[in-house]
């Protein structure tokens, strides 16, 4: 018989070993799945995980890792504070959309004014504020009425998607777009564009913001009283209250922080890589960031690595789609499977497995 025995303290080795194990396990299980779909498993896994880095066209794909990784890391860092403190903001996707709408709104309202020093910073601010405000709805409802923030933040994703459609078809539609849905292209409006800082590197302002956020989060979590209180609130809520943490304020700060970062991520996306407000502007970064946060152990450095890995699977998935005809959904499946595997392997962090021989009496 196999029994689980609680460890005296969580294993540090397994805390970092389990994400690696989970990734390897996902490659194996994913390979089996692709074999079942009639693909060559080795080729598919290589295409997804290695080709973006080492293939002939890697010069084109490598910058994409920064472009796709930045929003994931920005959002996941925000979420990690809440997840550590037991505040479950699942609606980052909605905050991301609203941030993009607000930021783009500032640019479109000022179009075609020529004042980059004013417009771009105002857009970033508006994007962060938009995401913050959207996240404050579930935050305030939880604090004021005890409403479940998981469900409310999620409902608001669907509301935000409808809002996005309404904007793309209505208020923000490009007057010169010949009736097609979608706003003006911001990346072609110099005062508002989130351009590459170094040509061909993929480095844009969102990447810079993500790096700064990682450092900020690292320092806060390991050294600052607030970081200590966040960890305390998640591990032992009563002890946190006893230590002087105001639970309501903690909920609002965590919600607000993750909302603002998701909103900023949305703005950087809409002003750069995406370029415009369109019906299908959001591609699920807000949900994938949840996986990134967990895979990175809710730790800033880990999140950075996990964000890069997840960006890799997006790019590799794209390559596999065009070169091998792999369905787009396969990559979502692989990402979901990764989170499953991580949660399964994680048992070794807090428990020790012991084999017991059944006694024959």
């Amino acid at each position, binding site marked *: 018989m196999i029994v689980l025995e609680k460890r005296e303290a969580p294993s540090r080795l397994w805390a970092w070993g389990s994400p690696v194990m989970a990734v390897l396990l996902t490659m194996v299980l994913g390979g089996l799945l692709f074999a079942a779909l009639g693909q060559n498993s080795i080729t598919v896994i290589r295409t997804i995980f290695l080709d973006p880095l080492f293939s002939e066209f890697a010069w084109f794909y490598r910058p994409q890792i920064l472009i796709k990784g930045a929003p994931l890391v920005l959002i996941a860092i925000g979420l990690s504070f809440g997840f550590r403190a037991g505040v479950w903001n699942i609606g980052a996707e909605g905050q991301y959309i609203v941030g993009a709408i607000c930021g783009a709104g500032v640019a479109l309202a000022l179009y075609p004014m020529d004042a980059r020093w004013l417009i771009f910073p105002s857009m970033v601010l508006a994007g962060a504020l938009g995401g913050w405000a959207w996240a404050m709805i579930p935050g305030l409802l939880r604090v004021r009425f005890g409403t479940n923030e998981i469900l409310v933040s999620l409902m608001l994703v669907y509301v935000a998607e409808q809002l996005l459609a309404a904007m793309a078809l209505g208020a923000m539609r490009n007057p010169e777009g010949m009736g097609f849905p979608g706003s003006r292209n911001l990346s072609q409006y110099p005062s508002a564009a989130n351009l590459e800082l170094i040509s061909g590197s993929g480095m844009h302002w969102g990447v810079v913001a993500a790096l700064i956020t990682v450092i900020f989060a690292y320092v806060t979590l390991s050294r*600052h009283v607030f970081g200590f209180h966040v*960890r*305390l609130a998640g591990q032992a809520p009563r*002890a*946190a209250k006893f230590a002087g943490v105001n639970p309501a304020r903690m909920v609002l700060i965590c919600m607000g922080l993750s909302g603002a970062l998701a909103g900023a991520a949305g703005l950087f996306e809409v002003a750069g890589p995406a370029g415009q407000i369109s019906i299908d502007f959001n591609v699920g970064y807000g949900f994938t960031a949840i996986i990134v946060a967990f895979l990175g152990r809710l730790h800033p450095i880990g999140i950075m690595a996990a964000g890069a890995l997840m960006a890799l699977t997006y790019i590799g998935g794209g390559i596999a789609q065009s070169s091998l005809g792999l369905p787009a959904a396969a990559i979502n499946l692989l990402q979901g499977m990764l989170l499953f595997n991580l949660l399964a392997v994680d048992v070794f962090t807090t428990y020790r497995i012991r084999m017991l021989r059944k006694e024959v009496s």
Partner: protein
Amino acid sequence: MRDTLLNITGLTKAYGSVIANREVSFSVGVGEIHALLGENGAGKSTLVKTIYGLVKPDSGTMDMRGAPFAPTDPAAARKAGVGMVFQHFSLFDALTVAENIVLGMDNPPSPRAIAAEVRRVSDQYGLPLDPDQIVGDLSAGERQRVEIIRCLLQNPKLLIMDEPTSVLTPQEVEILFKTLRKLAAEGTSILYISHKLSEIAALCEAATILRMGQVVATCDPRTTAPREMAELMVGQVLQSPVRAARPEGAMALELTGLSAPASHRFGTALRDIRIAVRAGEVLGIGGVAGNGQDELVAVLSGETMSDNDAVLLDGKPVGRSPVNARRALGLLCAPEERLGHAAAPDMSLTENAAVTAITRKSLTRRGFVDWPQARAFASAVIAQFDVRTPGPQHTAASLSGGNLQKFVIGREIMQAPRVLVVNQPTWGVDAAAAAAIRQALLTLADEGAAVVVISQDLDELMEISDRFCALTEGRLSAPRAARGLTVDQIGMMLGGAHDMEVAHVAE
């Protein structure tokens, strides 16, 4: 010599490297009230769980009336005639009394028949209960009645009672003893687990004493001196705490008609609490847990706000001050629940030191925690209070109950409080640690702090308090000098025997 009901031979059970029971042997006679005596962690719980089919022994045998007895689960144990009343009740708050009773039976009759049965048994043994009441709304004594009736309905041959009196008032204890004696007279054997020697001397006919998983002695508690049993149980001679005579100090903490709502659905609201504690004084607050103790500590610590003027610290109103503002002024608390409230289980002792000491020990610089200094403080607490741990980097959960409690109390005492409030300071703590904690509280008072001790353990309160009052259903009695109080007087202060119908116990 009476017939043997249960005979246990060479029972051994280990959890990993920890041996809970080593070669335990003893027997219980038919109709005998047999005490199982031992400290926390002596292996009593593992032993009775083995008898009740919850734990499978590594080796050793049991037999019941001469037939081999090896229950694979509680249902098998119940079928063989074993009933158990748990220390932490195995009850379901949101369910009714009848539903709770049905859950403890293997072949329950219909709901209507259950109600009638409950009434019959409760009349017979003087344990009144309403079958349709929600269990969460009952007092601790009533909840215990539910457990007892649940067992009695199955006509057990052996009734196991795990620390049954810890939640009862003295009068309720008397009634319980009457019930148990009546059961024994009818032929039911009772295995009575406790660490309270006076109770065992009053009730039991035989005692098996466990220490560190082994049987160290078997004796007749009616003829053995309590001191001797205590030494067998603890394995060393314990010093009673020393109290110095203290001059009356200035008023330190006052509650002036404090009221507060219940902390959760099954909690108790505080009503018009008045306390005045002077510097250098120990005020003992007795009462069964669940009568407003948690709420009172929360109101004092600042986790719950009250009217600003309802709590006065050195004459200053602090009822609306947050937790750390009160700490800055010198009002410190140590709540009852060690793991999860006083300390975070999976955090290191260094981090746990920072939970309460950030303010008074200035462990921060411009918002950043000074971890080296926090570690130094944690190490100081560990050294000063003899906390057995390899070092401050170890988690709170890795400490034994007694050691963690020494750490938690030590953490507050070493911040030099003006007023220290402790709730159940020695609950579930071994005797040596308990003695150390009591001594530390008395020393703190000697040094001029006001100390409020909230406890269910009346012996403890009599030992260390200067004045005593009782908290019952959210109301606090007027305090009286602790010296010279009799058990009966204390019982009256605790509100007597919560509607227990003594007369119903047919002798």
